[in-house]
């Protein structure tokens, strides 16, 4: 059917259409030449060109030149996704002296050439999309981006190594940082480790200095035992509510002398110690671990006699004396802060091996998780760094099972990335501390990273056994006298090609990494996305690895996916830099896609008011009309679609424009 001009289209529109080859990415599937010829034939189109790389400088210059010479006032660029180059070409329009919003992008790469094989069909699709764009762009109105100032302070969520590093980087740059940690101390998983691979330097020795400088840094406000409960606002201007759980100890008064702990009426600890994963007991008043930051004790109301009966001698208060740091009446409190940017470093949790009954975790006493063993061999741990079985004996043989809760469709499909290396580290430490025979059961040994393969060589040289095979079962059933009283690991030795049964005293399960249990709630609160596995989703896997789809919110560390310490720190630095870059521009530009009400047409039915989640719509009782506060409007357009009298319009997404686009894509013979 012949191309006709919609009467509502601006007849003064002089449209330029530019088809990008993107090398062969587009041109390989879409016949760009015929698309541009087709475009040239469309009403209102003054010039249509195809070019190898529209986003390149010459490509941009081409558009700019045409705007001048051909007096173009509307531009259509058919190339990649608007999310990539819309800003680029809007700048071109501005430079050429016409309004940046006289541009319409057409996505013929991600949505066309990359997803179709049939050249004919792909080319036809490109033509339809271009036709629609040409018809729509003529209706574009000139718009201006809104500028809002950026609040210079930053919120960092999570006090693990990533959060700590990000906070310090920002604070050293002179920015005010709020660091919020859920636990009573910062340090995260790294604080639980004994040594770090591959250098084997002691985790505490390199971590605690950073922890203490967080506590003492003038620009860092550290809130432990606290959680973010509400996030409002938009990039540059976030309002955040933080809940402080009561520790029943007044931060500013407690000096961490721990005399209250010694004085507690409980002579011995009775409660499984969270930090030692239940391998030791703590009292109701406790310090998570010796180098905890802040050095403030916590009182656990569930086990403290005073809270249960109110009849305790309160020897702790006596011990605290005139410092009066203990306050049984302390209540939960909430702080509200304003920040311009936020960094999420909420970390990971380890796989629960009970989900894989074949390995007998929880059934056989001497089956441990790798994290438990980290505590056992840690000098500050429950056994003072001695690796012993539950009965206090030193193991003579130890089996380390890799990929527990990793690379398995029945649990988690992904490779947890760090297990191979930490298993090697544990194998080394076990041999060093006990001289036991160590057997590593692996599927593939993954040691990419500086000095990692060399570390593997070292372990091979130390005489650790490496058996390639996923373990089928850990049982206490002896099929041979030599297996009596041992844990028997059954696995195929896939390199030898037969099944082996290996009796050991201790089994270590190299548990994989998983998203935090509440990752979904957190990402909803911060309005970012998760990949299907539950890891936070980065804006671009390669080019924007710490950004998210929500401006001003960045991610760092293992909350984005399994990561070792070097990677987490690197990401934390990157996230801090991104935040700094944004802060130093001092203001952000917001898309002008806001909605507004044509007073004369508003029937005053108020049906739009409940539709707006941002309370941007108000009703004036004298004029009996509704009106929209442009500052509060985020431009979702829900009210526009909901207005019975059609009196609300959304910039850049006006009904006419969308109708034009719909009819445009459908207007083919």
């Amino acid at each position, binding site marked *: 059917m012949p191309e006709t001009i919609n009467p509502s289209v601006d007849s003064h529109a002089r449209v330029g259409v530019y088809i990008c080859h993107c090398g062969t990415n587009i041109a390989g599937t879409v016949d760009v030449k015929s698309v541009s010829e087709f475009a040239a034939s469309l009403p209102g189109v003054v010039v249509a060109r195809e070019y190898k790389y529209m986003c390149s400088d010459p490509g941009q210059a081409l558009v700019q030149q045409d705007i001048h010479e051909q007096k173009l006032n509307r531009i259509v660029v058919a190339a990649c996704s608007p999310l990539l180059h819309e800003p680029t070409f809007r700048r071109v329009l501005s430079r050429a002296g016409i309004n940046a919003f006289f541009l319409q992008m057409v996505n013929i790469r991600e949505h066309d050439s990359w997803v179709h094989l049939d050249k004919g069909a792909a080319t036809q699709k490109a033509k339809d999309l271009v036709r629609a764009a040409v018809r729509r762009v003529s209706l574009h109105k000139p718009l201006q981006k809104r500028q809002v100032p950026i609040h210079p302070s930053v919120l960092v969520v999570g006090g693990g190594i990533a959060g700590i590093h990000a906070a310090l980087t920002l604070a050293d740059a002179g920015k005010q940082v709020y660091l919020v940690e859920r636990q009573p101390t910062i340090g995260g998983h790294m604080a639980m480790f004994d040594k770090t691979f591959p250098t084997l330097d002691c985790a505490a020795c390199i971590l605690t200095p950073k922890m203490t400088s967080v506590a003492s840094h003038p620009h860092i406000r550290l809130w432990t035992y606290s959680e973010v409960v509400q996030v409002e606002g938009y990039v540059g201007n976030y309002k955040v509510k933080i809940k402080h759980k009561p520790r029943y100890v007044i931060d500013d008064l407690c000096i961490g002398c721990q005399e209250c702990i010694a004085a507690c009426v409980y002579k011995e600890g009775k409660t499984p110690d969270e930090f030692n994963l239940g391998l030791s007991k703590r009292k109701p008043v406790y310090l998570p671990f010796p180098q905890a930051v802040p050095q403030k004790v916590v009182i656990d109301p569930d086990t403290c006699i005073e809270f249960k009966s109110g009849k305790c001698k309160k020897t702790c208060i006596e011990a605290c004396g005139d410092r009066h740091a203990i306050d049984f009446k302390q209540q939960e409190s909430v702080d509200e802060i304003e920040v311009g940017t936020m960094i999420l470093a909420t970390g990971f949790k380890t796989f629960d091996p009970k989900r894989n009954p*074949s390995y007998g975790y929880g059934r056989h006493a001497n089956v441990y998780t790798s994290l438990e063993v980290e505590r056992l061999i840690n000098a500050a741990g429950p056994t003072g760094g001695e690796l012993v079985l539950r009965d206090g004996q030193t193991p003579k043989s130890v089996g380390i099972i890799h990929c527990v809760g990793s690379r398995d469709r029945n649990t988690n499909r992904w490779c947890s990335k760090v297990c191979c290396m930490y298993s090697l580290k544990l194998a080394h430490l076990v041999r060093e501390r006990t001289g036991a025979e160590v057997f590593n059961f692996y599927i593939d040994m993954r040691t990419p990273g500086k000095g990692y393969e060399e570390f593997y060589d070292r372990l091979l040289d130390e005489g650790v056994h490496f058996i390639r095979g996923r373990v089928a079962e850990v049982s206490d*059933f002896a099929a041979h006298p030599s297996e009596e009283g041992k844990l028997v690991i059954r696995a195929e030795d896939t390199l030898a090609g037969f099944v082996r049964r290996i009796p050991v005293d201790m089994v270590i399960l190299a548990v994989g990494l998983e998203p935090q249990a509440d990752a979904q709630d957190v990402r909803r609160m911060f309005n970012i996305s998760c990949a299907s596995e539950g890891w936070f989703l980065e804006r671009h896997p390669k080019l924007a690895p710490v950004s998210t789809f929500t401006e001003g919110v960045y991610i760092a560390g293992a909350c984005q996916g399994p990561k070792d310490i070097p990677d987490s720190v690197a990401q934390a630095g990157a996230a801090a830099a991104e935040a700094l870059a944004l802060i130093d521009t001092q203001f952000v530009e917001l898309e002008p896609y806001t909605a507004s009400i044509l007073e004369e047409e508003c029937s005053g039915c108020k049906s739009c008011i409940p539709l707006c989640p941002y309370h941007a719509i108000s009703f004036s009782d004298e004029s009996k009309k509704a009106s929209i506060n442009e500052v509060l409007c985020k431009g979702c357009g829900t009210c526009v679609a909901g207005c019975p009298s059609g009196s609300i319009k959304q910039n850049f997404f006006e009904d006419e424009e969308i109708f034009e686009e719909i009819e445009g894509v459908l207007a083919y013979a």
Partner: protein
Amino acid sequence: MKYAYYPGCSLKGTGRAYEESLLAVFQALGVSYEELKDWNCCGATSYMSVDELSSYALAARNLALAERENMEIIAPCAACYLVLNKTQHYMHDYPEINNVVTRALGTIGLTWHGQTRVRHPLEILLNEVGVPAIATKVKRPLHGLKVAPYYGCQIVRPYSTFDDQRNPTSMDQLLSACGAKVINYSSKVQCCGASQKGTLPEVGLDRIRRLLLAAKREGAEVIATVCPLCQFNLECFQDETGNAHEPISMPVLYFSQLIAWALGLDAKAVALQRCIVPVQTLLGSKEIVHA
């Protein structure tokens, strides 16, 4: 509702004790059933290896027969239970199989719509009758008789919908309700070696011996089974397992026999006379000790 009882070939032969005790238990607990009219062999495991399609057709005939009466099937034999369920699944998942089999059924005036549920007695007793109902009917408790419930493979894998594949407990619950002391051991879902005893004796015997040992090690006095082949393997070759080692003597009953005993049913129903390894005195002693 009335169930279509599908005995399968073994329950008419070596597994008679299973049929006798199970049906008696059903009557005692008011599970109404009638034998599926003119049922045929399910097609069984060994048939699969020659000609899978035919075995689906055989299984499908039984399903179609039950569907015509619109009854649910009760299949006590593990192999039957698996093959009937497997056929249901494959008829759904693989159009090409569905096609051929449907056409074949057509030639004998039958149709398959996949409406028939295939269920196992364990599930019926557990979910339809219920543990409490059974407990109240117990007249002759097993008084701490140490029973090793042995599930074997094909009841729980891969299609079981009523119990855990690694650590099933349905039989445990039923037998505990009868006063037995149930033993938990990891071998309870391992394979008995199936027909290997016949075809590769040394392999079959080794399996059998391992299983008997595992149960004995945990102090079991009796093994309870849900499958005629498991029962046959474990009971009938015990002295052969002695060839290289000391022989093992361990009574092996169907779970239904133990329940029949606990419900105080008559000797014919409990069918102890069908045992090769004697168990009468053992059960008797329990009775006397605690009566």
